[in-house]
């Protein structure tokens, strides 16, 4: 467990102190170990949750946590290979592109993400740039 997650805050609502967006473009969001293999955690932003996935090969992907079908939380889906199936209606979304797998049609915004020395970094520039796009999704 990280200090940010449990030690500083007693209520689970405010798990982490809201972090101001920095200028480097990459934001450390936590340790790779905090994301369960074949699972996901979310990063909460004012424009919606971003789901950060980890597959069995320890590849990490980030998508907006919102299925292009009916808005289901992809972070709760079953991860297999480079796919996640949405928990609401089992659409298969490709983790590396955000595209729905045929025959379904749809796309969810994706974000750059990288792992360095066990820490996971989310690319923030597209988040800012896509703010308008996200708002239209909202």
């Amino acid at each position, binding site marked *: 467990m990280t200090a940010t*997650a449990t030690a500083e805050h007693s209520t689970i609502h405010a798990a982490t102190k809201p972090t101001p967006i920095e200028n480097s473009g990459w934001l450390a969001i*936590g340790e790779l170990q905090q994301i*369960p293999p074949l699972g996901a*955690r*979310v990063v*909460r932003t004012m424009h919606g949750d971003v789901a950060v996935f980890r597959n069995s090969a320890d590849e990490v992907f980030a998508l907006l946590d919102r299925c292009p079908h009916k808005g289901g*939380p992809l972070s*709760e889906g079953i991860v297999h290979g480079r796919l996640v*199936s949405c*928990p609401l209606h089992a659409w298969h979304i490709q983790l590396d592109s955000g595209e729905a797998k045929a025959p379904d049609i749809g796309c969810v915004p994706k974000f750059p993400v990288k792992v360095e020395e066990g820490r996971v970094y989310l690319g923030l520039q597209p988040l800012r740039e896509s703010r308008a796009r996200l708002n239209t999704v909202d």
Partner: protein
Amino acid sequence: MKEQLVLIGNGMAGMKVIEELLTLAPDKYDITVFGTEPYGNYNRILLSPVLAGEKSVADILINPIDWYADNGIRLHTGKTIVELDRAGRRVMANDGTECRYDRLLIATGSDPFIIPVPGKELPGVVSYRDIGDVERMLTASREHKNAVVIGGGLLGLEAAYGLHKQGMTVTVVHLLPTLMERQLDEVAGRLLQHSLALRGLKFVMAKQTSAIVGDARVEAVRFADGSEIAADLVVMAVGIRPNMALAKSAGLLCERGVVVSDSLQTSDTAIFAVGECVQHRGQCYGLVAPLYEQARVCAAHLAAVGVPGSDRFYEGSVTSTKLKVTGVELFSAGDFQGGDGCDSMVYQDAAAGVYKKLVLRGDTVIGAVLYGDVADGAWYFRLLRDHASVAAIRDSLLFGPVADGEGNSKPSVLDWPDNQAVCDCNGVCKGSIVATIRSKGLQTLDAVRAHTKASASCGACTPLVEQLLQMTVGADYHAAVSTPICGCTELSHDTVREAVRCQQLKSLSQLFKALHWRNPDGCDKCRPALNFYLIAAWPGEAVDDTQARFVNERIHANIQKDGTYSVVPRMWGGVTNPRELRAIADVADKFKIRTVKVTGGQRIDLLGVKKEDLPGVWSDLNAAGFVSGHAYGKSLRTVKTCVGSEWCRFGTQDSTGMGIRLEKLTWGAWTPHKFKMAVSGCPRNCAEATIKDFGVIAIDSGWELHVGGNGGIKLRGTEVLCRVTTADEVEEYCLAFMQLYREEGRYLERTAPWLERVGLDYVQQHIVHRSARRLELAQRFRDEQRHFQKDPWAELAQADARERFIPIKELS
């Protein structure tokens, strides 16, 4: 560097150890094998069919020479080890080849016993032991006419029958007045002699051979009374002697054979021994099943890994015998003579050529001889081996496993549990035979033997394997065409399930590897199913992988369309009280829960809970005494009840109390799909028990039990399982039914389609007609509840489990 393992003796027992070892610990040893014969190893038991012309030498090869190279094994054929230097851990062969070892395995088998009479070394006198002997006999049969087989035991009779089939005139000479006296009593022995005489064999009984007569070649056999019979070929088949010369010369403890412990170790712990050369607990064995049992234990010890249960140590074998003479049906097991304190039961039908004798001590079978009709041999053998009490079926025992008084039809191999061994030689269970037939689409007995090895050794179980084949691909052909679970595999649910059991797969990663899954971590369709099969087969042992669970079972709440969750606390039998209701109301206020609704299963549903609020909601509900209602699971959902005899003027029994009792027993149990119950207090059925998976309706005289109902998309009324009188019976039948469904239902198959697939009859066979089976199922359910009956909310509300419910990071 790998340890050196040297095997002396390239026969069935030794090579069985190597085969097992290649599975258990393929990288542990560098393996070297020395064999005196110039072949790969072959199935010695099937020499008789080769002699009789029913099989070729190629048919009975187990591992051809290429196999050894393919598996990285150095094979020295045609070399006999003549020296064993224990201090130097080194063996030397007759051609001077030397080999060092860390572990040595002696499997030198046995030598045919040659009667020490004058003329025993004359050309034309052979023993019956190996391919060379068979070739000599076959050559002789082409050039000569008269054969004499000395020895009227199993081996002698098979040799005699083979030579007779090759066109020779064959006389069997036996020292004793009846044949196969070590396996048959007098009556059966005489029946056998009569039957073989009709086939053209001649017999000279109770005669002692005193000399083999001849100049350049055998010409006659002379007996102690001075009489003679002409012979161009003499086969000595009077018995075998463990071949322990090498072991003895090296100073290993030897008595009648090389003495071994229960771990198959000799008096030198670096040296193991298996097969016909060993003596274990005073016994030497000459049949394949015990040798293979020894081999499995020995391999496990060599691999230094445990094998489960009683197989870890070899504790001796109970053996049975079958004569491989086409058309002669004969079975023998255990102590068939009886004696003081034993009873025997005999059935004899001379006209039909049937004779059956069972020997009992108290209420257990200790011996059996069957002649003419051996269909029940395997059943008697199981009773014998398991020391099963036959008190209840004593009066019908001789007629086989027929009606047990409750109208059961005769069970066949089809009714056997999947984990029951069909082929005792190779240890192949019913389930894996059926699974292999299905998965590989096998159509013939030979194909089944090739893929499973079932019935490929002694052949005694051939009728059972044929029955399984017929069942799987024959009459029920449409069932055999099974659909794969998903695109990750060709295997069906049933096949995978069987593999989980038979191959002892206990994790997803093991399963994916063992069953060659196409995608390394499966998919959203197979992973939840496989996870269920694993935890159902190995409760408490297999890891319950939460990432293989659908969101609801991972988060223990029902996901809603907006990504929030609904929470349903368990309310036993649908009964609550003001204190509980206040606690629910407080939780609803505190967490601003928008909708509170009564469910169809008589519970209260709190809708619209945010994920991060779940642990808080649960911990408040836990504090009020609630546990999870599992409204989200493929598991026991609710037991719906009416008020019953406590309030209702029509009620005949306490349906509410019964519902609470059933729910307290079964909550937390995982099932293939959701499982709903209801208990109604009278036939008016206000609890709607007739559309539940398990419904109970109180009647004046007790309870009527219903199964397989469904009120969902496809409405299906229940079928009546049976009526019972006591509450304890309701409990037992309910648990047994849930367990049978859990063990045999396919994932996501409700009881309604399951019941339609297997039939009510089948379920009644297991739950109603066979009380032992019902008890066993119910007990297993209770045992497994120790692992399943845990409140997931209490676990997830713990501080260290809460992290997964909150964002990893919040950004402004």
